[in-house]
């Protein structure tokens, strides 16, 4: 993995997707090191005395030619609200690329499904592009509460076939991602499933994959103070005991996690 950096970036675009989400594009003068999908950054939030720690975000996209990164940010508290309201030209101090284990790239000709919900769809965009570049055709299954919460659909559709579920049925299949028919066509199973999103969603996906012996990787987002392995706060229970999500992950093969998913 590339050396970790702490750099000042400038916001070059703040694209509002809906009342909750924005995509921030940030640029630096320095060269961006190679990023593996799933890796993340810790962003320092200035100008709000109530926000003490950095905030971790998956890297949604990287443009090596323009030295820029993209982050999908959902306003859920004081830190993210400040970030969502940043104007173009604002300076952001960013610690990256963090995480020693990103998503692995499935072999060519594999049928792969990228399942995301909420902010968890962010790293799947970069993963989709990296899979495509490696000759694997990704398919996406994105879930949300309703149509207004499904964002950047055109971007995902441009990378691969995209399926949707919404809790109210306003787009795609009604229900949660696990209810989508693409998962229940037993004649045409996936070889690999990648997932990132709410815990309950990832566990349902992991359970599905484990039952069918499908390789499955999940990206976790435990709360953390540092992001590089010194605070020891973001642990998850793994077959090796407590491990830090920030250094041993954030992407884990579900076989390495002690999730209670067997029936």
């Amino acid at each position: 993995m590339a050396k970790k950096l702490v750099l000042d970036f400038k916001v070059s675009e703040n694209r509002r997707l809906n009342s909750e989400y924005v995509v921030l594009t940030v640029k630096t003068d320095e060269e961006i090191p190679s990023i593996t999908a799933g890796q993340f950054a810790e962003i320092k939030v200035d100008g709000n005395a109530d926000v003490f720690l950095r905030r971790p975000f998956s890297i949604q996209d990287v443009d090596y030619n323009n030295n820029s990164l993209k982050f999908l940010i959902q306003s859920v508290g004081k830190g993210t609200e400040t970030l969502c309201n940043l104007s173009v030209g604002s300076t952001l101090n960013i610690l990256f690329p963090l995480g020693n284990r990103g998503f692995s790239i499935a072999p060519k000709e594999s049928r792969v499904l990228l399942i995301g919900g909420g902010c968890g769809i962010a790293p799947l965009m970069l993963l989709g592009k990296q899979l495509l570049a490696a000759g694997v055709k990704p398919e996406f299954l994105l879930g949300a509460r309703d149509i207004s919460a499904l964002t950047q659909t055109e971007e995902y559709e441009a990378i691969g076939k995209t399926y949707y579920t919404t809790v109210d049925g306003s787009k795609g299949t009604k229900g949660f991602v696990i209810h989508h028919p693409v998962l229940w066509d037993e004649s045409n199973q996936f070889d690999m499933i990648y997932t990132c999103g709410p815990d309950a969603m990832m566990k349902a996906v992991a359970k599905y994959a484990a039952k069918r012996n499908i390789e499955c990787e999940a990206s976790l987002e435990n709360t953390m103070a540092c992001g590089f392995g010194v605070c020891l706060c973001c642990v998850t229970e793994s077959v090796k005991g407590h491990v830090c999500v920030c250094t041993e992950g954030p992407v884990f093969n579900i076989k390495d996690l002690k999730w209670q998913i067997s029936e």
Partner: protein
Amino acid sequence: MADLRIKIKNLEFKNPVMTASGTYGFGEEFEDYYNPGILGGIFVKGTTLEPRQGNKYPRMAETPSGMLNAVGLQNKGVDFILENTYPRIKKYDTNIFINVSGSKVEDYVIVTEKINEIKSIPGIELNISCPNVKEGGMAFGTSCPSAAAVVKAVRKVYDGMLIVKLSPNVTDITEIARVCEAEGADGISLINTLLGMAINAQKRKPILSTVTGGLSGPAVKPVALRMVWQVYNAVKIPIIGMGGIMNATDAIEFILAGATGVQVGTANFIDPMVCPKIIEGINNYLERHGFKSVTEIIGALEY
């Protein structure tokens, strides 16, 4: 360039800036940012006799100007650390202190005896102040007889520098400090975290798996400064001050209050470059105020 060197007993530190146990790993995690060898000292993660898995997740809560943690001394045990980790980090040109934690006096003694075998380790920091383990830890540091017992037992088997890290969760920090001095401590470091708690009102649940945890960050700085000043006026041995140091000015405040050296803790999480910045900032302060050596401002509070 001012003279940043300090001395505790016969041990020289190239500058007063050290890292607090549990906030700096073993230094390796910072190699991408700077050479840990520029520091005055590194106090590595709390080490116990047996490996410990630590507490369940969640272990962290952000609080106003600070954070709570409830890590619970997760570590690989003294044997692993001395055989595997220490050999990798001894190359750093700085003083590496092992933070020794335990739940029984005998455990502290056995861990210390093992460290005593390795003469290149200049000292230990006896942690009698961890608020996050059920047995021991803070219990030793909150009563004079138990603090005396553990310091005495460890002193008997340890030839190196013995720093005792005190808990702020006491009525009178000076009496604990005096007892540690009387039992042979070479220095006192303070403060460990303040016992605190965070609640999620929406879920009507505590945020930490352990309900309570240790508060650190700028929120504790006034308490820490007061305690360093009190202990400075109560004992003759040197003090390493800590608690919410985020920049050089904070560090200088601790030195003025009586600390010979300082430890930077939580700030390492937010800015991995904070320690080099503090070293530079202390030098700038000394030059600006016409001091030749940092030792001139130790306890130099005017009142």
